[in-house]
């Protein structure tokens, strides 16, 4: 502990999961996150855990479903097309109220797309890519260290609320190397997994993990119960970073890799006499709408920058609620916006 090492984002995710008590990993390879399964295949057997390369993403997510049902801390990892394949299983896991961690290292889409970094899976992650009235907690790190720190949160939140939690990164975060430190985490009080299918152990009733509710009234009740949980999360678990917002004229809203580039752009804009701040959502769901709404009273305009053609910008507009103009700048398909492009957009806004 405390010693820094140099890791790729994808490797750091693997080590952080092991440190968070994850002993089961089921996955199927896809670029640009192959270093996660690669790392897990080397490390998990040494920790007495199980690494299994499934025959497909569909099989992998159903293995996650099974292990989570038995109360294990379990993770899977993939990139965009692979996550699409996992969507049915994710919906089942949400419906069965099971905790697990899913990593998506996003690449350009739609379809097979390419292998370069993108942020075009925001809708899929935050609006329920699978079917039904479910939500996932979505964490969006913007450095390798933050990937490590959020992994512990991801497992804790999943256990606390009994639901799937996603870490949404992009190819850049997955592939880049940065020094990381694995800090000792304070354990938080978690509810016992008395629902897990680990044998009756003298109880009268067996535990059954299922997402089937044939009686409409019961299915509605189940959904209301989930919704109650989601409301609680929206109240308690919002995370964001506010940077240089004190006297900003333009607030840029960006997450992940894009937010890192925004910080460079802010410094360059400053040298040209422009006051620009950044609100960086760390939880994409729940979305930090209150801080954005509050900023709308102070700034002249908002600029959302994404590696997509405009997805998160919809949530920004909802949060701003017409108080100030919301502009958008995006690169997509694996292209990464440069600090210069961002400064030019701010210049256009400030006229």
């Amino acid at each position: 502990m405390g010693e820094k090492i140099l890791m790729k984002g994808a490797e750091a995710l693997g080590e952080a999961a092991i440190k968070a008590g994850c002993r089961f990993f089921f996955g199927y390879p896809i670029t640009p996150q192959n270093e996660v399964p690669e790392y897990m295949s080397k490390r998990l057997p040494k920790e007495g855990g199980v690494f299994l390369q499934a025959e497909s993403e569909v099989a992998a997510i159903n293995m996650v479903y099974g292990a989570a049902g038995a109360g294990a801390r379990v993770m899977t990892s993939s990139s965009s097309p692979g996550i699409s394949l996992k969507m049915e299983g994710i919906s089942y896991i949400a419906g069965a109220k099971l905790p697990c961690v899913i990593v998506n290292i996003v690449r350009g889409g739609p379809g097979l797309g390419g292998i370069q970094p993108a942020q075009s899976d925001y809708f899929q992650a935050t609006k329920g890519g699978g079917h039904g009235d479910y939500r996932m907690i979505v964490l969006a790190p913007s450095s390798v260290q933050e990937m490590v720190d959020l992994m512990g949160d991801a497992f804790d939140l999943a256990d606390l609320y009994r639901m799937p939690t996603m870490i949404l990164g992009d190819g850049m975060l997955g592939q880049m190397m940065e020094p990381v430190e694995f800090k000792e985490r304070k354990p938080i009080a978690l509810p016992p997994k008395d629902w897990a299918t680990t044998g009756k152990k003298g109880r009268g009733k067996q535990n059954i993990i299922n997402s089937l509710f044939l009686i409409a009234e019961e299915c509605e009740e189940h959904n209301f119960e989930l919704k109650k949980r989601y409301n609680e999360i929206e109240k308690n678990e919002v995370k964001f970073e506010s940077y240089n917002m004190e006297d900003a004229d333009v607030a840029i809203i960006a997450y992940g890799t894009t937010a890192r580039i925004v910080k460079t752009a802010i410094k360059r804009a400053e040298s040209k006499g422009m006051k620009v701040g950044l609100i960086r959502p760390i939880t994409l769901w729940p979305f930090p709408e209150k801080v954005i709404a509050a900023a709308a009273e102070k700034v002249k305009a908002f600029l959302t920058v994404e590696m997509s053609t405009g997805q998160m910008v919809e949530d920004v507009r909802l949060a701003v609620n017409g108080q100030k103009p919301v502009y958008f700048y995006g690169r997509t398909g694996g292209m990464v916006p440069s600090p210069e492009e961002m400064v030019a957009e701010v210049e256009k806004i400030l006229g």
Partner: protein
Amino acid sequence: MQNLFVSSIKLYALGFYNFKFYIFNFPFCRRQEGGVTVEFKSRIIIITGNFGSGKTEIAINLARKLNEEGKKIALVDLDIVNPYFRSREMKEELEKEGIRVVAPRGALAQADLPAISPEIMGVLEDASYHVIMDVGGDDLGAVALGRFHGYLSTHSYEMYMVVNAFRPFTRDEGGFVEMMQGIEQSSRLNIDALISNPNLGAETQKDHIIQGHQKVLTMAQQNHLDIKFLAVEEGLSQEIIELYKDIPIFPIKLYMLPPWC
């Protein structure tokens, strides 16, 4: 069958080692003002190592250095492991300087396919070229060298393993040996010497280099290997040159930077 295969490689390797020994005893470096010129006996230089150990940065820097010395250089991007941060991303810039960059062409350059360009054999066989091979990481990346085993085993080459003691799998002796043996077995070639590349990315300080290099020194000694040079980011190299009198310091400029730098 497997054992027979492996031990025959080792016997072959021993024979080869004597030949390499001659190279080690040759005074291959001389100190110059502001740094050291690293010299090579063979025209084929193979850079292997753990993925993320810094092979690509070192290969690019070596290519530029040797190019500046007036040699005709081909930099071969043989990375079949990494999807990003590969030598091919520097193709345009390096080719302007006259360095030939050999990598999959067109759209294939951006693919995650184990595509190996037929041009590689071309530059290996063309004796007018000094060839630097930037091999993919770990034993998995070194597999691609197997394709050239037939040629390499009958020609003079130098194979180096880049080690960064701050990387998770080469932090200790056990991990290092496993990595080295994996690379040697899957490439069916032998590592001649190490390249010490201790760094913590953008956070690297003098003390990290000293601490990381000490580990590599120990690894090298215990495995009877030489260290070809100590690679140091150019901003720190002057301080380090003053510290080490008996090892060549190779200052490197970093090229594979994230988009916010």
